[in-house]
């Protein structure tokens, strides 16, 4: 039988507010356990939550960026369950009336095709603390620093049909939340993670199959691997006459498999009800419009503009606009390079990205500024240096030897464009290689490359390659 995979993602994006969603405690990552948990986060008797308005603004930004409706009236609800890292015995979330609902994103697939993915809803909620098992003998440690950190849970429609699509969607949302500056997107620290609902159905059938939910996937690679494992597991199960059980599963990244965490029967009855400590969240259309006016240019629009304004290919424009930092960097380079957009695109996507990856750096802490890179590109286009020498100049800049002009000056890398000087070098090379000259003149044209190489070597790479070519041809042909 031919199977169709149906996937929906629930993405948890930690909102980049300075303080928690219902208290004034800091949200900074990595502090000593329980040093960033105030009375409210600890769930002490008598404390009350107060909503952080910035978290609401961020949710609205996301909603507007995905064409969602912003609810004029939404409600915080309590999700009740006991767990040691859940201090109040309930999580404040949104249930029946979320702040953001019904929108979409367009994702691009590997083959260049685009696809619409529905966003069912996005709601605000607080994160729980962490249970610590390592380094504790026979007991569990509880760290409540994360308790109360604001999360935006973004729920997709079950529109995704493969692990690759799921990853493309997740990357799209990842890019969006960073463009909007509402989430740092740091997956290692858990700031951006997802649960994947996966089910199978016979191709052509409308009714969904029974789904399994894979919890807490915190890398694109894990999302792809876990979903693919799950697809195979479910197909094997179904084809051997079994049935898929509705359950929550965990992905074991070491073993590369998913395993059951709890079945539907073991699931909690969360007893959702409106939180009486918080008033319903009322948002006016004026407030929405104020926030809309502050939205940055979003990736799709930016990509279109890059293609139109800079004459970039769809592929290049897509790569450059995948992150706002990279797009901004690119545009600053173009400006510094007096509009050399294609050259800038090649360098930003090529050597520059390569150097960042090699050193594990973010654009923000690159040793080469856009002005430095743009300045170097100007020296390429005005023939001061060749593209080849530019690679050395770039490395030197990366290593802190100053801007391009300083490096070129200090290392004497200025291209030789004086035809007299080039001709003199050519004459020497020809004189030193009579045999090759003879062969060339006998029709072995390929030897041109040999002569070019020798001249470039003699000039220590500084001779202008185009001039060398031209003058060589003239001299070789006698």
């Amino acid at each position, binding site marked *: 039988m031919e199977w169709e995979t149906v996937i929906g993602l629930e993405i948890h994006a930690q909102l980049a507010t300075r303080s928690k969603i219902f208290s004034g405690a800091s949200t900074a990552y990595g502090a000593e356990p329980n040093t960033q948990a105030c009375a409210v986060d600890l769930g002490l008797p008598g404390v009350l939550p107060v909503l952080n308005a910035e978290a609401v603004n961020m949710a609205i930004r996301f909603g507007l960026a995905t064409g969602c409706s912003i609810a004029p009236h939404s409600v915080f609800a309590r999700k009740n369950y006991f767990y040691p890292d859940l201090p109040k015995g309930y999580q404040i979330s949104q249930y029946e009336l979320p702040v953001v609902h019904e929108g979409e994103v367009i994702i691009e697939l590997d083959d260049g095709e685009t696809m619409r993915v529905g966003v069912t809803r996005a709601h605000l909620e607080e994160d729980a603390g962490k249970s610590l098992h390592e380094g504790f003998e026979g007991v569990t440690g509880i760290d409540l620093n994360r308790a109360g950190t604001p999360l935006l849970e973004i729920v997709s429609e079950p529109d995704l049909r493969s692990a690759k699509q799921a990853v493309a969607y997740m990357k799209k949302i990842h890019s969006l939340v960073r463009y909007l500056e509402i989430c740092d997107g740091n997956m290692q620290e858990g700031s951006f993670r997802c649960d994947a609902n996966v089910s199978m159905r016979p191709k052509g059938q409308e009714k969904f199959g029974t789904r399994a939910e894979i919890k807490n996937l915190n890398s694109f690679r894990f999302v792809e691997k876990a979903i693919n494992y799950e697809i195979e597991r479910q197909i094997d199960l179904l084809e051997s006459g079994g049935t898929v059980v509705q359950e929550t599963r965990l992905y074991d990244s070491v073993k590369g498999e998913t395993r059951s965490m709890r079945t539907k029967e073991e699931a909690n009855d969360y007893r959702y*009800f409106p939180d009486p400590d918080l008033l319903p969240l009322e948002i006016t259309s004026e407030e929405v419009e104020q926030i809309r006016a502050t939205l940055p240019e979003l990736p799709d629009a930016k990509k279109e503009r890059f293609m139109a304004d800079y004459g970039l290919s769809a592929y290049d424009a897509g790569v450059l606009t995948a992150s706002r930092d990279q797009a901004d960097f690119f545009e600053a380079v173009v400006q510094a390079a007096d509009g050399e957009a294609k050259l800038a695109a090649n360098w930003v996507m090529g050597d520059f990205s390569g150097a960042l990856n090699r050193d594990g750096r973010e654009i923000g802490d690159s040793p080469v500024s856009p002005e430095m890179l743009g300045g170097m590109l100007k020296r390429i286009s005005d023939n001061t240096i060749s593209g080849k020498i530019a690679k050395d100049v770039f490395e030197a800049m990366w290593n802190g030897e100053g801007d391009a002009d300083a490096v070129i000056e200090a290392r004497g890398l200025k291209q030789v464009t004086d035809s007299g000087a080039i001709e003199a070098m050519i004459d020497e090379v020809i004189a030193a290689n009579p045999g090759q000259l003879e062969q060339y003149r006998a029709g072995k044209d390929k030897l041109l490359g040999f002569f070019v190489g020798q001249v470039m070597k003699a000039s220590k790479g500084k001779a202008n390659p185009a001039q060398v070519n031209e003058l060589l041809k003239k001299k070789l042909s006698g």
Partner: protein
Amino acid sequence: MSIHTSTVAELSTALARGDHSSRELTEVFLERIQGQGAALNAVITVTAEQALAAADAADRSRAAGEAGPLTGVPMVHKDIFCTRGVRTSCGSRMLDNFISPYNAHVVDRLAAAGMVCMGKANMDEFAMGSSNETSFYGPVKNPWDTAAVPGGSSGGSAAAVSGGLAPAATGTDTGGSIRQPAALCGITGLKPTYGRVSRYGMIAFASSLDQAGPMARTAEDCALLLEAMAGFDARDSTCVERDVPRYSQALGGDLKGVTIGLPKEYFGEGLDPTVASAIDAAIAEYRKLGAEFREISLANTHLAVPAYYVIAPAECSSNLSRFDGVRFGHRCDSPRDLEDLYKRSRGEGFGDEVQRRIMVGTYALSAGYYDAYYLKAQQVRRLIRDDFLQAFEDVDLILGPTSPTAAFNIGERSDDPVSMYLSDIYTIAVNLAGLPGISVPAGFADGRPVGLQLIGNYFDEARLLNAAHAYQQVTDWHTRVPEAFA
């Protein structure tokens, strides 16, 4: 005038005149609390040292000319309010070991007004009860008859004022927990409009119903205390940002042209005839004061108790989840595993009534029952509120009994939750609607006090207090003191 039977206003005057220092007053009341008053079991934590230090500080600020009307006046807090460095038990074994690291908003406000806190008043466990018999620290006795209950849940506060252990106390009212014990102990107790007083630091029972208020001998005293307690607090999202009138300055207005509604549902079956005749006498006094009466109907009154006993337990089942033995409060000995920790810590820490309400509330919120119970109860709640709003189109205040009977005996209703719940039949609807209500002493039934309830429109505490004060100018029920504690 003896100090322990004085009102807050009288003590305030005495302090201002220099007749007494705050230290003298505080010593008198501390001696009452620890001496003959101890038999009432009204105060479960006495903070004598801190009280005397606070009294000295109050005397110093008075000497410096910085005294307000409440500076140096002693009081006690219901043990539901968090007090920094002092055990805050909420009447429960669960919090018998809980020393709060912070002060409730109300505690800070009254301290800032210069009041001297002498300790913490006994109460029904987690404010769940109408007789103060559910306290882990044992029942409180009614100063008028120690065989009788003081009412609840603010029974310790009411008995402390009535027995002359403190001139004033704080209370909280979720379904009548200020007004009913005030009635049963013969004192005055005000439940303000929901949102008038911050709930921050007040241990939650049912968040949408809980409201803090003052308990004292007179309406005037309640006015003085409410002025200090009320006001906006950004830490409570349900607290309303609205100016606080000078309630005590607004007293003394006449009642000419004031229209008072008499809900026929509050005078029907179940109302003790002796209580009814005390209320009738009060109505006659009000007529003499110039008030006009009109019969009204609050047609959904009979649904108030059932709706309340869905909503309040539902909220409490969630509010009390934080008491899990993990971070504070009671933890069972050597738990085998996490589930055992939860089950035994909560099973041992909570008393029967609390467990009963947690179970009822959990059931009412369960999948498949939510619509039939919780949602339905919320709909009823709106009907009840609408009844009141409609009534207030025609009348300024509503009057009736606070409780259908005077104080019952300790043990009399403790095995029958429903009969216990019915003692709040006239007070519960006020919480469901979020309105202010006050109970004032209005006579006796077989030697036990009877309370008169006045209900006002939203944020109409000034009118409510004025009407109660006017009545107290022409009656002396509020000046009576129980003989055994005279």
